[in-house]
């Protein structure tokens, strides 16, 4: 605007910049530096160049294992969670009486967060004699040893996160409400059945939000720590030993802070690359309403 200095905007983001420099940049760069050192807590750090990184990438079998598990986890959890959150948002996107109560109820799992009760309850749900197995056997399936099988343990954590779909759901819900109803009417006149309208209209129009949630959920999934820490402690056979847990144990159990930092930065790079890929690919599948100008 005329009369405004070109630096005006800068003053508004100044708090962020200060915060960034003072509270974030130093720890960030600190950990980056440490990743190039052999730093055992309580002992000094000695610079060792890329050694941590070459170790991680060439020698560390636990890292490889953990990395694969992490990728698997992200690959399963993120799409499932997005789909589930979207589905529930669709159900809750109605004008029924008392819908506020239901929305709250469906959000409750997210409020519970990492509460102890959740961990305890999860054990009951998936224990050999737990609720899930009771259901399975009652409809004629075999009971499954959820926690004991390397193949299924990861899934229990996935389910925990699925169940805590609240924030993604709320965002979807909001986006659903902003879709122009007349598009559905036009589709109905074009002869589209509801499910068809969902795939032809709803889904494409939600892509910006799907994208937003995808990025956020991906970041969250890559940093999943509480689930395996509380529910499976990484086992069995490291089948739920996600990278953040590995980093944590490396740093706070083995006190190998330099090495832990290096793993963290490798993880950072992976997320960064995936995020960039997502941003880049978004051009091809995300439909932005945006106005004509700008």
């Amino acid at each position: 605007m005329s009369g405004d200095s070109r630096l005006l905007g800068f003053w508004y983001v100044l708090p962020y910049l200060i915060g960034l420099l003072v509270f974030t940049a130093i720890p960030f760069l600190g950990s980056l530096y440490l990743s190039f050192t052999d730093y055992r807590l309580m002992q000094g750090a000695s610079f060792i160049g890329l050694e941590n990184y070459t170790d991680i990438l060439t020698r560390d079998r636990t890292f490889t294992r953990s990395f694969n598990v992490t990728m698997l986890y992200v690959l399963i959890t993120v799409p499932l969670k997005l789909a589930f959150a979207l589905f529930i948002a669709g159900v809750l996107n109605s004008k029924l009486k008392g819908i506020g109560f239901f929305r709250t109820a469906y959000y409750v799992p997210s409020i519970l967060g990492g509460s102890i009760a959740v961990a305890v309850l999860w054990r009951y749900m998936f224990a050999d004699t737990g609720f899930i197995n009771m259901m399975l056997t009652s409809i004629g399936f075999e009971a499954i040893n959820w926690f004991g099988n390397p193949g299924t343990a990861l899934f229990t954590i996935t389910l925990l996160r699925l169940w805590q779909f609240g924030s993604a759901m709320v965002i979807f819900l909001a986006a659903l409400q902003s879709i122009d109803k007349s598009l559905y009417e036009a589709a109905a006149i074009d002869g589209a059945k509801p499910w068809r309208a969902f795939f032809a209209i709803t889904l494409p129009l939600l892509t910006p939000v799907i994208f937003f949630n995808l990025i956020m959920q991906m970041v969250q999934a890559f940093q999943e720590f509480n689930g395996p820490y509380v529910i499976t402690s990484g086992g069995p056979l490291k089948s739920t030993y996600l990278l953040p847990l590995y980093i944590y144990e490396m740093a706070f159990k083995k006190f190998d802070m330099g090495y832990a930092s290096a793993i963290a930065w490798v993880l950072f790079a992976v997320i960064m690359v995936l995020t960039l890929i997502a941003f880049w690919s978004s051009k091809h599948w995300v439909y932005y309403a945006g106005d004509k100008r700008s």
Partner: protein
Amino acid sequence: MAQLSIRNLEKVYGGSLKALHGINLDVKDGEFMVLVGPSGCAKSTTLRMIAGLETVSGGHITIGDKIVNNLAPGERGIAMVFQNYALYPHMKVRKNLSFGLKLAGEKKEEISRRVQEVAEVLEIEPLLDRLPKQLSGGQAQRVALGRALIKKPEVFLFDEPLSNLDAKLRASMRVRITDLHRRLKEQGQSSTVVYVTHDQVEAMTMGDRICVMKDGRIMQVDDPETLYAKPANAFVAGFIGMPEMNLVDATLTRGESGPVVTFGDQSIRFGAKLAGRLEAGVGGEVTFGVRPQHFRLAAAGEDALTAKVIKADFLGHEVDVHIMIGGQRFTVVLPVEDYRKAAVDGTIRIRPEEDRVFIFDRESGQNVSLA
């Protein structure tokens, strides 16, 4: 055969709000029917019930010879053009056009043939690979039209399709739509149209017949000329015609030579030939109506109304003159030159054209001056 008929159609919203009070309407095969009326009179509601987008609370709707009350919108053989176009924003124009056909399971070649055909008719071929947001208002409107056209429906439904366009575009799209309607009719295709608008110019220029609605009831259904010449009541009279008809409170008495209309401190005498027509209202407090175009400058000495000019809007070929007579405000349309000559000291002397005045019952609004 695609006549549309509506019998005792009712709509109740939320269990209590009665939006439509059992209307009856017949639209002939190939007819262009315009629904007009002020905002909230249930034009859209009616249209949407025909389309199947609103449930019917009572009565029934027949398209061709099928009662369609219980059919899904896609099965009624209708197509609809929305006020905000409702183009699928994420699909290119081509896909917007073909979506309906694809759902109907048409063959690929047939689809692309029809798309091509429609695109040619509407001159939107260069736009086929654009997204809706890359279209101007008029272009988007044509695509919306194409989406309806391509389905070859039995009945076209339009809900204020032009109200988002600017004046110029509106005028040209108006012509385009009527042209198209004529062409379809000539080709023997089904082309029954129900067209909702609140712009009376659209109504007058486009409709074969016009249905004037108010508060969920039909006021009058007639062709434009009849509606203009013989409005059934003050509401229709005021609604049709631009600038609006002057409708003022007046007293109608019997004078020596014929009826006398008095408002405020002025009165005007009419000749005997009006006596018959105005008889019904004589002696009462009535609403007196004359269209702005139906005043003429009074000759010297002629019985006339003396009007104080408040403001004159120059419109190129004519002038909208805002005047006061007997404390009531009137609008008069005069040719530029006439007005220039006549205006003296800010007053003009004018007279309504005798056979063009109306008398309405003050209470019911009924036109009591129809021959």
